[in-house]
């Protein structure tokens, strides 16, 4: 029994309690040990009711037992107090409501104020050794109302933190300033956590709900697994799988269920799932004999699969793992030996091949720039060929030749694409490249449309496709809506068609053209907005816009002429762009 508590209690209640206590607690050995000190029984300060005394007397062994101490709060940081303040309303201190007299409050404050409490005061006097404050309120630690207590405090010059580069820190402060001071370094705070009931520790752990549940889950799951194994042995694989899954629902990561399911997967040939099941089972229970055995066999199977797929190194790793699980497995050993041989062979062959390649590479040391130039020349040649063919024949033959040229171009394009992608990186786009990309953009459209009956030429402002097809569509999607507002042209119907375009292949020729125009112009405008600072782009836009204005009239022209016109326009633009761009490129 806690002596201090007992003494405090007796002091409070007095003689009557002492006698009651003696009556009730005579059997209690702790009490007898303590009672010797407590012979002196001062007067009771308050008229305490007999009921309370009876309670205390009866329950003294619990009330004063030292086990409460374990539940007493620890010292904690300031933040806890703030958290607690948010959970319930902060009220003015109680003594205010109680209207405790002045003197008593003062004495209480002097008794209770301690190092670390934060007070707020107003400066009323500045002297050379410090300044005087009248304390207004508490800001932390103790919760009292002190304003009318007329307390004043001295803040010594030693304790004033230096404010800036003033030689005299006092000059920083004026009469009337509010100061918040912490008396000393550490603050004491008690937490307000009442949740723990001391009898929590008195119940056996096995009686708790979660523990029982876990045991129960394991037992229920095992029942399901047994049923599943029964199904499996009689060949009913589907029911077996259902049972295993049920078992795993009841108890996730149940070892037996995982092993059984893994075996079922391995039998069916789903090697990867089997392996993952076995691995999971071994994580929980690393010494499971069956799991190890089955895993070893399954890994050998997997290794064989990998070997067939020519992934020799991975297969080797797999065989090694299988062997580490079960040293005695003859299959695994055999497989490992064979594969190490194969790997060494293949390494040797590869080295020889590399040596040869190395020699070849030395011969052809062209710079990338040269290669690009070559490819561009080739492209121009192809284009010229195509122009000639289209001018002489009808649209269908033009299509044929275009397809042939396009197919040949396609092959060349593949090589170019890779180079272009790397070159495009962070550099500014030069006109040449842009035109290439434009061609590529157009190329892709051509590829798209190749399936259809007719080939539709790209509109004259295709050189605006500085962007490739992907960004085009993105801009088309975003800018389609803005486009209508911006230009104010009657394009609502076309915008609608533009929508369709995003989702499905274009249906008709005229529709197609208009759509492309829409998307081009929208991508134009979007692109120009996005690259605001580029004046050249805006300049080009105007020219393109000019081109656009003309397009409505072109619808009447026959396909051939349209075609030619656009090719020429394009070629001219390229020529026009190149000298500009050469000045612009860095």
């Amino acid at each position: 029994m806690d002596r201090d508590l007992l003494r405090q209690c007796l002091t409070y209640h007095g003689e009557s309690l002492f006698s009651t206590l003696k009556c009730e607690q005579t059997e209690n050995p702790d009490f007898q040990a303590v009672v010797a000190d407590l012979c002196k029984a001062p007067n009771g300060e308050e008229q305490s009711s007999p009921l309370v005394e009876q309670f205390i007397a009866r329950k003294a062994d619990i009330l004063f037992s030292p086990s409460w101490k374990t539940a007493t709060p620890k010292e904690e940081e300031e933040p806890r107090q703030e958290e607690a303040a948010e959970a319930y309303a902060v009220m003015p201190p109680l003594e205010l409501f109680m209207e405790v007299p002045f003197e008593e409050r003062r004495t209480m404050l002097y008794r209770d104020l301690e190092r670390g409490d934060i007070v707020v005061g107003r400066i009323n006097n500045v002297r050379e050794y410090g300044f005087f404050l009248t304390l207004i309120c508490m800001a932390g630690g103790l919760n009292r109302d002190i304003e009318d207590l007329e307390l004043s405090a001295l803040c010594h010059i030693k304790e004033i933190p230096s404010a800036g580069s003033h030689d005299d820190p006092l000059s920083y402060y004026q009469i009337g300033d509010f100061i918040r001071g912490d008396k000393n370094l550490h603050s004491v705070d008690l937490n307000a956590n009442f949740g723990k009931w001391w009898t929590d520790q008195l119940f056996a752990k096995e009686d708790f709900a979660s523990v029982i549940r876990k045991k129960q889950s394991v037992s229920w799951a095992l029942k399901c697994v047994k049923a599943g194994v029964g199904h499996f042995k009689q060949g009913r694989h589907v029911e077996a799988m259902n049972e295993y899954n049920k078992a795993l629902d009841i108890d996730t990561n149940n070892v037996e269920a995982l092993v059984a399911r893994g075996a079922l997967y391995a039998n069916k040939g789903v090697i990867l799932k089997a392996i993952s099941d076995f691995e999971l089972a071994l994580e929980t229970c690393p010494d499971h004999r069956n799991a190890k055995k089955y895993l070893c066999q399954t890994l050998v199977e997997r290794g064989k699969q990998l070997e067939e797929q020519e992934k020799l190194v991975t297969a080797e790793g797999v065989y090694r793992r299988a062997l580490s699980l079960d040293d005695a497995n003859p299959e695994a050993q055999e497989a490992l030996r064979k594969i190490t041989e194969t790997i060494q062979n293949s390494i040797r062959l590869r080295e020889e091949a590399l040596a040869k390649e190395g020699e070849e590479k030395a011969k052809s040391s062209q710079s990338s720039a040269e290669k690009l130039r070559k490819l561009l020349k080739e492209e121009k040649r192809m284009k010229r060929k195509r122009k000639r063919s289209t001018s002489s024949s009808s649209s269908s033959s033009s299509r044929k030749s275009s397809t042939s040229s396009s197919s040949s171009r396609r092959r060349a394009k593949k090589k170019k694409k890779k180079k272009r992608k790397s070159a495009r990186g962070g550099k500014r786009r030069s006109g040449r490249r842009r035109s290439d990309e434009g061609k590529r953009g157009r190329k892709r459209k051509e590829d798209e449309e190749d399936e259809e009956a007719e080939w539709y030429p790209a509109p004259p402002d295709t050189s605006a496709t500085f962007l490739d097809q992907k960004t085009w569509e993105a801009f088309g999607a975003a800018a389609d809506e803005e486009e209508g507002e911006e230009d104010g042209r009657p394009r609502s119907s076309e915008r609608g068609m533009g929508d369709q375009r995003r989702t499905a292949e274009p249906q008709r020729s005229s529709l197609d053209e208009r759509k492309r125009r829409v998307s081009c112009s929208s991508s134009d405008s979007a692109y120009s907005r996005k690259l605001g600072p580029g004046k050249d782009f805006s300049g080009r836009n105007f020219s393109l816009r000019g081109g656009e204005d003309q397009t409505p009239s072109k619808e009447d022209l026959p396909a051939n002429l349209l075609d030619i016109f656009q090719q020429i326009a394009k070629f001219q633009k390229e020529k026009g762009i190149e000298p500009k761009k050469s000045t612009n490129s860095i």
Partner: protein
Amino acid sequence: MEPGPSSRSSAARDLVPAAGRSSGPAREADISRDMKTHFRVCRFIMEAGVKLGMRSVPVATACVLYHNFFKRVSLSVYEPYLVAMSCLYLAGKVEEQHIRTRDIINVSHRYFNSGSPPLECDKEFWDLRDSVVQCELLILRQLNFQVSFEHPHKYLLHYVMSVKSLVNRHAWSRCPVAETSWALLRDCYHGSMCIRHMPQHIAIATLYLALNSYGVELPVGEKRWWQVLCEGVTKVDIDAVISDLLQLYDMEAKCI
């Protein structure tokens, strides 16, 4: 032990209405026997609440549901432990700390058959589960679906925080006033006193008792601290609560 577990499996039997009772000394004996039964069942509720990891307030709700149910209903008609289990289940739902029936059944089964292995997923288990769920509906109907209550816990928390500021912090840390008052509050739920008094009065009374037990001195002003904290509470009210609580402790001594 009580004849509880054997009759738990069939709820149908519980719905048979009781015959009339004789009056006089037999009746008084009945009443005290009933109170003892209620005490034991509430102890079961508390213990199960701890094992299920329920917070204080849901456990309190379960007890209040139980007491309210048996206010108008006779013990001979309904199996009290089954009602207790359903009260736990319902209280979990009301106070947003949902407890699975499986856990309640596991804990209760183990309470009555200590050391037994967990129940298998068989007929007995499903019967028990059905009983709990049906009884829950029965409780709801008996209580006219009024299942949300105001508890003293939040009041007690607030009062303790207010009083703490009046006391020297060292004196406070020496006396476990907060823990004691909280424990006293939980003990209140073993008897029907928890539904006979206002929650604020119960909170004030437990705090008063705790402070007095340790002889903590509080300043005295124009008003007493408990008058300030709770409007309209009188010493008489406080004494009534404390006497009820002490009667409860008396009964505890007789029950054990």
